[in-house]
């Protein structure tokens, strides 16, 4: 206080507060002293004093003589300059944050209307390309030579492929916005359902399944189903052509989370490209070898991260791949 005042203790001793601190000849209006002198109680007020370049919490305590007669008050001033500054910073920060939030909401709306147009406007021309190609095919029949018919097939296939890409992209963008419906999810049961769903893909295949104990987790069932569908169908897809395909699914506790994995002995991948596994439309195999749009793992990653988990893959060329994902345990667990 003396430092801020630029005075020595001797200079201040015996002086009234209003004179010594404020340089005024009488108590200032904002000083709680007035209140204390009126009702004889303790009062406090936050006071900013330019002369001191700071803020103070001033408490005035009534001072009585032995007869209980009010004769004055004691002023206690706490230097709260730092606290005030921190409060102001915090206020500024939260204002900035609110503004940023408005911006983000705006961006989100734009993105939504963009994906809406994509779904509506890009689909129609695709249908026309495929449709009129089909009508030409019907009308010309065997009139066209084989090469021309092959070209028409290419056009139709390309249109179909683009339709799938648009659908996948929309699924992906929806997954980021969709509200999560959290609840207890029995992963073991979910996996059995998913395996039934994938019957078509596994039909006629010789696959050795090794299914470990899977826990109950807390999450969005339909989203977690997509995680399993994508990871399991990837394992099925990339073990195609193996003399004995093996797919292992398991889960273990590690600290305060579950680590689940899906392991296959398929074609695997080069760890050099591991960081590209989860990028949208990124593919590590050509369409000739394995079909796909390159959206599956991006979708899986988005879902896992929305659950507060992590995902990573390990593999080597020709020796299979393992995908791990974590899901946080809840209090119930």
């Amino acid at each position: 206080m003396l430092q801020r005042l630029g005075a020595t203790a001797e200079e201040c001793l015996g002086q009234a507060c209003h004179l010594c601190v404020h340089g005024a000849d009488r108590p200032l209006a904002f000083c709680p002293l007035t209140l204390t002198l009126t009702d004889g109680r303790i009062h406090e007020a936050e006071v900013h004093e330019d002369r001191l370049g700071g803020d103070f919490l001033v408490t005035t305590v009534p001072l009585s003589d032995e007869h209980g007669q009010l004769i004055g008050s004691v002023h206690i001033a706490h230097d709260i300059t730092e606290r005030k500054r921190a409060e102001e910073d915090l206020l500024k920060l939260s204002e900035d944050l609110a503004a940023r939030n408005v911006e983000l909401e705006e961006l989100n709306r734009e993105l939504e209307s963009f994906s809406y147009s994509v779904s509506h406007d890009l689909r129609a021309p695709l249908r026309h390309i495929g449709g009129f190609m089909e009508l030409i095919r019907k009308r010309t029949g065997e009139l066209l030579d084989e090469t021309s018919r092959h070209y028409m097939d290419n056009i139709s296939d390309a249109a179909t492929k683009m339709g799938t890409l648009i659908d996948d992209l929309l699924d992906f963008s929806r997954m980021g916005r969709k509200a999560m419906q959290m609840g207890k999810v029995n992963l073991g049961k979910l996996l059995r359902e998913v395996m039934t769903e994938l019957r078509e893909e596994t039909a006629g295949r010789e696959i050795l399944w090794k299914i470990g104990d899977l826990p109950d987790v807390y999450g969005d069932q339909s989203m977690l189903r997509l995680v399993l569908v994508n990871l399991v169908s990837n394992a099925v897809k990339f073990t195609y052509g193996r003399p004995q395909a093996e797919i292992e699914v398991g889960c273990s506790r590690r600290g305060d989370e579950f680590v689940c994995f899906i392991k296959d002995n398929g074609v695997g991948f080069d760890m050099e490209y591991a960081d590209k596994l989860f990028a949208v439309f990124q593919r590590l195999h050509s369409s000739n070898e394995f079909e796909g749009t390159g959206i599956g793992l991006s979708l899986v990653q988005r879902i896992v991260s929305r659950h507060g988990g992590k995902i990573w893959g390990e593999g080597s060329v020709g020796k299979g791949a393992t995908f791990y994902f974590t899901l946080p345990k809840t209090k119930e667990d």
Partner: protein
Amino acid sequence: LIVTELKRILLVEDDPRDVELTLVSLSEFNLANDVVVAGDGKEAVDYLFRRGKFADRTGGNPAVVLLDLKLPKVGGLEVLRKMRAEEKLKMVPVVILTSSHEDRDVAEGYKQGANAYVVKPVDFHQFVDAIKKVGCFWALINEPPPGSINKTGFC
């Protein structure tokens, strides 16, 4: 406009290629001649409410309206709202036929009183199949409300 009298299907669609593909699909049940096409929402409203160039339209209500959502001038949902607010058109079956399978469009469609919501399949064969089924059910099998144009065929 005598020709419009027997048109039992009102197709509200702004994309001429979609109109063509829809007509091709409906021709399988000889329904193509039963279709009157409105190229935007305003024309559809004029046709239904017998206004503007359709002021002198005679005959009953269509047995079904196939309604696209994204239309110039007056949107599909707006057309539907106007229909449901009008005593004479309240009961006319409306099938929304659109490329959008956004949840909010589906929900809003039903909320405004659509009788069915069909997403146009991207694949041509599926598209033809869907249109055929819609046309067959709503224009031939379904008994339309009183005041609609009567059926002339079966599928």
